[in-house]
C-alpha cells in the first residue's frame, strides 16, 4: 500500500495550487531596494501584453538611474487606467487607445487631462502552416473563420486546395480568454463578436506559433515578433478588393496593416520630474531598443522623445 499517501497528497496539492494561483493574481514582483539609498518610486501598472516590456524597461532603467525604482504590475489596460484615475499609479500602460468615456471620467474625477505617449507598436500576425498555399486573407474572412456563427470552416471555402484532404478542416488556434491579444483580436478582427467554440486556446504567444508549425490545417494569431521559419505570415486586407499588407515594421507604423495597435503610456496632467525623465528615456534609442528586443515595433527615430499632440485618436 505504499503509493497511497502519495495519492492522498495529490488532493490537497490541487487545492493548494488553486490557492497559490489566487495569491499570484494579487501580487507582482517587487524590485529590491539597495539599503540606505533614498528611492524615488514610480508606480507603473496596466496592459498584460506590455508587462514583460515594462519589466525590461524598469530593470534597464535601474542601471541608468539607481536612485529611481519603477514598480511594474499587470492586470490589463483598463485596470491600469482605472488605477491612474484613483491616483494609485503614476503611469498606466495601455495596449489599446483610450475610450472617450475614460478621458471624461478622468477629467471629472481629478480635474486633469490624461496625457498619453506612444511608446511602441504591436502587430498581430496571422500565421498558417508553410504547406498552406494561402497567401493573403481579409478581415471579413477572419471573422467568418473565428467568430461564433461564422460560415467558413474549411480551407476549400476560401478556394484553397490543401496538399492532403484530411487537412481541409480549418483548425482554429486562439488564446486563452483572459489574454489581451485575444481581446484585441476579438475587437478588431471579429468586431467584438464571440469566438466559435472549439478553438484551441493556447496559453502564450509562442505556443500558438509552435502549434501552427506542427499542424498543417491550422490558422493562428500572435504578435509578429514570434514568427519563426516554420510558419508563414499572411498578408491581411481590410476588405475584399483592397490591397493586403504584410505585418512589417513599416506597415505597422503607418497603420496600413489592419490589425496593429499602439502601445501607450498614460499620465495625469503634464508629466514632471522623474516621471517625465522616465517617459523620455523609454522613448529614447535605449528604451526603444528594448521594444524591438521584446518582439514589438519601436517608434520611428524621428518621433523619439517628443510628446504626441494631445488629441484623442478615433
Amino acid at each position: 500500500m505504499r503509493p497511497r499517501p502519495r495519492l492522498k497528497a495529490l488532493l490537497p496539492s490541487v487545492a493548494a495550487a488553486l490557492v497559490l494561483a489566487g495569491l499570484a493574481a494579487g501580487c507582482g514582483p517587487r524590485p529590491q531596494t539597495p539599503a540606505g539609498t533614498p528611492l524615488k518610486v514610480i508606480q507603473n501598472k496596466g496592459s498584460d501584453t506590455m508587462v514583460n516590456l515594462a519589466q525590461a524597461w524598469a530593470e534597464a532603467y535601474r542601471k541608468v538611474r539607481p536612485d529611481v525604482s519603477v514598480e511594474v504590475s499587470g492586470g490589463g489596460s483598463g485596470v491600469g487606467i482605472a488605477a491612474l484615475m484613483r491616483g494609485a499609479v503614476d503611469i498606466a500602460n495601455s495596449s489599446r487607445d483610450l475610450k472617450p468615456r475614460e478621458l471624461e471620467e478622468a477629467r471629472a474625477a481629478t480635474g486633469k487631462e490624461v496625457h498619453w505617449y506612444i511608446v511602441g507598436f504591436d502587430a498581430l500576425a496571422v500565421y498558417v502552416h508553410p504547406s498552406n498555399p494561402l497567401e493573403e486573407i481579409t478581415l471579413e474572412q477572419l471573422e467568418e473563420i473565428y467568430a461564433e456563427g461564422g460560415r467558413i470552416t474549411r480551407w476549400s471555402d476560401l478556394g484553397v486546395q490543401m496538399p492532403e484532404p484530411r487537412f481541409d478542416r480549418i483548425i482554429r488556434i486562439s488564446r486563452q480568454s483572459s489574454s489581451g491579444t485575444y481581446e484585441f483580436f476579438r475587437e478588431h478582427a471579429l468586431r467584438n463578436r464571440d469566438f466559435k467554440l472549439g478553438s484551441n486556446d493556447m496559453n502564450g504567444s509562442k505556443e500558438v506559433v509552435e502549434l501552427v508549425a506542427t499542424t498543417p490545417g491550422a490558422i493562428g494569431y500572435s504578435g509578429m515578433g514570434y514568427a519563426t521559419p516554420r510558419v508563414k505570415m499572411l498578408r491581411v486586407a481590410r476588405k475584399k478588393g483592397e490591397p493586403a499588407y504584410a505585418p512589417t515594421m513599416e506597415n505597422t507604423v503607418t497603420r496600413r496593416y489592419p490589425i496593429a495597435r499602439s502601445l501607450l503610456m498614460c499620465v495625469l496632467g503634464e508629466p514632471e520630474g522623474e516621471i517625465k525623465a522616465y517617459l523620455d528615456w523609454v522613448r529614447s534609442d535605449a528604451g526603444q531598443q528594448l521594444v524591438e528586443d521584446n518582439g514589438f515595433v519601436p517608434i520611428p527615430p524621428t518621433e523619439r522623445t517628443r510628446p504626441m499632440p494631445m488629441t484623442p485618436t478615433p
Partner: protein
Amino acid sequence: MNPHDAVSHTRQGQPVEPGRPRWARVAESFIEALIRLCGVSAVVFVLAIFLFVFREAAPVVWSGKVNLAEFLGSIEWYPTSAVKVRYGALALIVGSISVTLVAMAVAVPFGLGAAVFVSEFCGPRIPETLKIVIELLAAIPSVVWGFVGMTVISPLLVRYAGAPIGVNLLNGGLILALMSVPIIVSIGEDALKAVPDSYREAALALGATRWQVVWRVLLPAARNGLLAAVLLGVGRAIGETMAVLMATGHAVQIPHGLLDSVRTLTANIAAELGEAPVGSDHYRVLFLMGVLLFLITFVVNLAADLVVRGIRKR
C-alpha cells in the same frame, strides 16, 4: 493497527521503567503531542481547503448570477464575452470524463496485466527491478509528461494516425494512462500478494493450469484490491492538470472522436484563474469548478478507501 491501543500501552508502561529521568518523559509527551498535531493537521488542512474553495464559489450561486442548471448543462463557455457572458461547463466536464475514460481503457489492461505478471509469473529477481522502474514512472513530473505529449506523441499522431491536430483526446489519454499505470501496478500487485498462498496451492492441487489459477482464483479473490487500484488510478487521471493542459489541445467542445481536441476542468482552472480578477463572477465560477472537482475526487477516493477497507476486514 489501532493508534489508541499503542498510546495507552506506552502510558501503562511508564511506571514499569523507574530508571527513566523526568526530562525523557517530558520530551516524550512533547513529541507525542507534536505527532498528534501532525496527524490532526492533515484533516484540518483538507477541511480548510474545502471551506476556502467553497466560500469563494458560494456567492455566485447564492446571488443567482450563475444558474447551476446552465453551469452543468450548457457547453457555452464564454467567461469574458463582450456581448453576453455565459458560464456553461458541460464541455469541460465531458472533457475531463472522456480523457479519464480513454486513459483507463489503456491503463487498466496494462496496469493489471503488469501486476499479474510481477506477482505471479516473474522469476525471483525480476520483480524488484521491474517495480523500481515502474515506480520511477510515477516520479516523472507531470509537466515533463505534457512536454512528451506535445513534442513526441503529437507529431506521431499527425503523421501515422491521420489526426488533423496532434494535441487531442487520444494524446491526453495516453499521457494520463502512462501516469496512472504505476499506481495501478503497485496497488494491484499488493492486492494479489495479499491472496493467501493456500488458494494457489489448492487450485494447483486440483489440477488447474496457471492461467486458470489467475483467471478463476486470484482475480476474483483480489477483486476489491484491484478495484481500489483502478479507482485510485482514476483519481490520479481526473485531477491531473499540467499534462492535460499541454496535451489535449485545450478546446471547448464535446469530442466526436478520439482525434478531437478537448479541455478539462483542471486545465481550464489553471489557464484562467491567474488572470481572472479576484472576486469577479468568472473567478467565482472557476472556484465552483474547483468544488466540482473536489467532489469528484472525494467520491473516487472515498470509494477506493471503502473498497480497501473491505479487503482488510476479510
